[in-house]
C-alpha cells in the first residue's frame, strides 16, 4: 500500500543541508498497524507528515496505493485527504466552534456526501463510540478522552484506507489512553484499516503489529511485534 524509496528530507541553508530524514526505504502493506518510535528530533512527525501528504520529501519516491504521489499537484492531494487518509492528533484539533456532531460531519461535507447519508454515518459513529449523549456539546465541554474519541470518529467518518495518528494518547492519562489504543486496535483488526502511529510509549507500541525505530532521520530497526 505504501512504498517509500530513498526518501530524504532536508533543509538547506547557505552552507549546509540539515537532514531530517535520510534514505528512508519502507513498505507498508494494507492492514498493518505500524508504530513509529524514536527520540525527539528523530524525524517521526516529519515522516508521518510525508506519509499523510502534508509535507513533501526533498528527494525520493512515495507510492501510495500504487500511485506516485510525490508527483501529485495540491488539488489532487486534497482529493487524497478527502478519500483515503484520516488524521488523529495529539491535541485532538477539534474545531472549537462546532459541536461534536458537526465536527464528525465536517469531512463528509467536504467529501460531498449527501445529507441523509451523512446523518446515518455520524449517528452510527456516535453510537459506536458511545458518545450519542455528547453530540450537541462543544469540544471544550467534554473530557480529553472524549475529545480524542471524537477526533477518531471524525478521522474514520470518511472511511479512509489509511489512518495516521500523531501521539494519539499523548495528552491523555493512562486509562483514557488505553481505551483509545484499544479502539485503534479494534479498527485495525475488525475493519482492516491501515494505521500508522507515532508514539513515545513502548506500551502503546505493543498494540500494533510492527515497530519502526527512527534515529537521526534513519531507520534503525524495523521489527514485527
Amino acid at each position, binding site marked *: 500500500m505504501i512504498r517509500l524509496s530513498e526518501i530524504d528530507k532536508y533543509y538547506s541553508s547557505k552552507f549546509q543541508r540539515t537532514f531530517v530524514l535520510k534514505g528512508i526505504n519502507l513498505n507498508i502493506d494494507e492492514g498493518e498497524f505500524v508504530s513509529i518510535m524514536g527520540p525527539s528530533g528523530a524525524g517521526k512527525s516529519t515522516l508521518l507528515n510525508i506519509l499523510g501528504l*502534508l509535507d513533501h520529501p526533498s528527494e525520493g519516491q512515495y507510492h501510495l496505493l500504487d500511485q506516485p504521489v510525490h508527483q501529485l499537484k495540491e488539488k489532487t492531494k486534497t482529493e487524497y485527504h478527502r478519500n483515503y487518509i484520516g488524521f488523529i492528533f495529539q491535541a485532538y484539533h477539534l474545531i472549537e466552534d*462546532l459541536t461534536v456532531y*458537526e465536527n464528525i460531519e465536517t469531512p463528509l461535507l467536504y467529501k460531498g456526501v449527501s445529507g441523509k447519508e451523512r446523518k446515518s454515518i455520524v449517528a452510527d459513529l456516535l453510537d459506536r463510540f458511545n458518545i450519542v449523549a455528547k453530540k450537541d456539546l462543544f469540544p471544550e465541554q467534554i473530557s480529553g478522552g472524549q475529545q480524542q474519541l471524537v477526533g477518531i470518529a471524525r478521522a474514520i467518518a470518511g472511511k479512509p484506507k489509511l489512518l495516521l495518528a500523531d501521539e494519539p494518547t499523548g495528552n491523555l492519562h493512562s486509562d483514557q489512553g488505553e481505551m483509545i489504543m484499544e479502539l485503534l486496535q479494534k479498527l485495525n483488526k475488525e475493519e482492516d484499516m491501515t494505521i500508522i502511529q507515532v508514539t513515545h510509549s513502548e506500551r502503546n507500541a505493543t498494540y500494533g503489529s510492527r515497530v519502526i525505530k527512527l534515529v537521526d532521520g534513519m531507520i534503525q530497526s524495523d521489527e514485527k511485534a
Partner: protein
Amino acid sequence: MKRFFKTLYRGIKKNPLNSAINLFGLTLGFSCIITITIWIQNELSYDTFHDNSDKIYRVHRYFYNPDGSENLHLSNVAPTVAPILEKELKEIESITRVKHTGFTFRSDNKLYREEEVCFAEPEILEIFNFEGLPLDDHLLEDPLTMVISDEQAMKYFNRLDVIGEVISFYSQDGQKQDLKIVGVFEKWNQNSHFHPEFLISFITYESFVGEEEMNSWGSNNYETFALIPYLPSDIDAQLDNIIDEYLEDGTSWTKVRIEALTDIHFNWHSNKTYIYVLASISLLILIIGSINYLNLNLAMYSRRLEEIKVRKIMGASPKKLISQLVGESVLFCLTALFLAAGIVYLFLPEFNHILGSPLQFVLTDNFPMIAGFILLTILTGVLSVLYPAIVLSSFNPISTRSNQGLSFGKNSFRTALVVFQFFVSIALITSFLIVYKQLSYIQHKELGLQKENIIVIPTTPQLIEKLDVFRQELTANPNILSVSGSKRVPSDGLWDNNDAEVESDGVVNTIDFRLPNVRVDEHFLSTYGVPLIAGRNFDETDVESSGYLINEQAARQIGWESAEEAIGQVISYGGQRANVIGVIGDFHYESLHVPISPIILYKDPSSYNRVSIRVSPFDRQRTLDLIEAKWQQYNVPNYSFYFEYVEDSYNRLYRSEQNIKIILTYFMVIAISIAILGLIALSLFMIQRRVKEIGVRKVNGANTSELMVMLNKDFVKWVIIAFAFATPLAWYAMSSWLENFAYKTQLSWWIFGLAGVLALGVALLTVSLQSWRAASRNPVEALRYE
C-alpha cells in the same frame, strides 16, 4: 448553508467585543455613506423635475471695471434683455421675465405676508411644468390676473376650485387692488431654486412701474428664463454681438451669459467642492471602519488558524475556505448595512433639523441607489477579507503546527492600516480645529459697527414721511435708543452702484473702481455705532445733494492721504456734484468673504425701504410690541408686521460654513470613535500575543513601567508617522478653504500640534489601559498556560 450561518453566529458569540466593534465601525461607515449619498442626490436633484429641464437656461449678467476686472455678477438681468434676446436669437423657443417680490395679501379681512410672489410673463407656463392649470392659451395675459398653487388655494379658501375668486392687496399709495385667480397649479414640492406660489401677470407689474423701468438697462431685478432646445455652440459670441448692437461699446463694461437651469443650484446656492469633500470624508470613514474590520479579522483569523488547518487536512480546498471566509464577511457587512439603513432612517429627521435640509430616505423608488449600496457592501465585505483569506487558505497546514500565530508580511500591512486610521483622524481633528477657529474669528471679529441689538423692520413711503415723529415717539421709551431709515441695511449686499468722478482744481477724474452707495439718514452712524473719523455727519437739514460721506477705504483708493484731506473735496456721483462732508471708519457691510469695499453714503429718503432700530437688551418683548404698535399706527393699514435682527442676517452669511462645521464635528467624532475602538481591539490582540513574552521579561526583572514603555512604543511611533503625513495635507486643504475668506484666522502651528497631541493622547490612553493590565499581571499566570 445552515452550517455556514451557524459558524458565523457562533463566531460572533465567541468574540462579542471584536464583533461589536466591527459592526459598530461598519455600521457607522455605511450610515455616513448612505446619508451623504442621499444628500448628494438631493443636491443634484435641483430643478430637474421639469420636462424641459435640460433645455431651460437662465440669463445672468456681468459688469466690468474700466481695467477689465470683474465688478459684479448678477443672477438677474435688466428688463430690456428678454425682448431683445427673443428677437435676435432664433434658437430661443420662448423666454420669460420673472420679477420676485414679497407681498401682503388680504382676503376675507385677514392679512397674509407672502414671500413667494412672482410677476411673470405667460411663457413661464410653457417653459416650466405647472400641472393642473386649465387648458387656456391666454392665462396670465390680462392685467390683475394670477394663478396660485393648490396649497395657497387651500390656505386662503380651504378648497381647490377657486378660479374666479379674488385676493386683494394694497399698493404702496394705499390703493386697494383685486387680483383675479385664473388657475390653480400643483405646488412645486421638488427641489427647486425658486418656489412660486403666486404667479401674477407681468402686464400688471408693467402698469405699476411704468415705461421707464421697462426700458432700463440698470434695473437688474428680473430673473430671465429661456427655452432653448438646441443651444448653438457660439452662443457667447452671439450674446456679445447682441449686446454691442444695442448698447454702444456695451461688452466693454457688461456682458450677458446663459447658464443651464440645472446648474443654478451649484453656481449660486451651493458648492460642488463641499460635495466632493463630504463624499470623500464619508468614504474615508467607511474605509476606517473597514480597516477595523480587516485588522480585527486578521486577529481573529490567527485564532481560527487551528480550525482552518484541520479543515484543510480533512480535505477542504482553498477555494472552499476562501468562499467560506468571504461569505461570512459579506454577510456580516450586509448586516451592518441593514443596521445603517435603520440608523439613517431614525436620525435623518434630526440631521435635517440641524442642517435645515429636506432630506428623505425613500427606499421604494430608489432602486439604483439600493443596488449600489448592496454592491458597495459586498465589495467592502470581499475586499476586507480577501487578503487574509487567501493567505490563510494557501497556508501549509504543517508549518503552522506550532501555532505561533500569523504574521502577515511582518505586520507592516497592519501597521500601515493603523497609521492610515491615525492619519485620517489627525487630518479631521486639524480641519475641525481650523474651521472652528475661523468661525469663532468671524463671530468675534470687530466689524467696525455694532451688530447686536438692532431690529430691522420694513417700511412704506407713508412711514418714511413721518419718520421723525415715529422716531421721537419710539425713543421716548428708554429701551429704544436710536432709529434710522435706509435703503438697505448692513449684511445685505452692496448692490447699488453708480459712476463716480472726482474734481480737483477743475480737473475731472473718473474713479476707476467700483464705488457702491449706501443711502441712509443722519441717524445711521449712531444706530450702527460707526465712528466718524473726520468732518461731520449728515444733519436734519441736509438733502440728497448736500454732501457725501465716504469711508476711509474710499478715501484711500481715491488717493487722499488722510481723512482730513478728503473733507471738502468734490465728488460727482451719478452726475450729482457735492462735497465730501465727512469720512467714516471702515466697517464690514458685507460678509468677511470679501474685503471691505469703498463706499459712498448719501441721504435719499425716497429710496428708504427699511428702518433700523437700536434697542437695549432689556425687556425685549415689550419693546417689540411697542414698535409693532407704532408701526401699525404710522403705516398704511393692511400691512403685516415683521422684523429681523441684523445679527441674525450677519450670521446667515456664514450658513454653509456653519453647516460644514456641524458635519465636520459629526464626522470627526465618528471617525475618532471608530479608530479608538479599533485601537482597543488591536492593542488587546497584540498584547495578548505577547503575554508570554511579558511574563518571561517580568520573571527576568522587568518592571511594569518598563514593560508599558515597550508595549506603547509602537503606537507612539505610528501616531508620529501619521502626524507627519496628515499635517501637510490638512495644511493644504485648510489653506485653500480659507481662501474663501478675505479675512482669515492664522494657521497657527499650535493647531497642528494640538491635533497631534490629542491623537497621541487618545491613542496612549487607549493602549495603556490594555498594556497596564498585561504588564502588571502576575507573570506566573501568563506562563502557566504553556
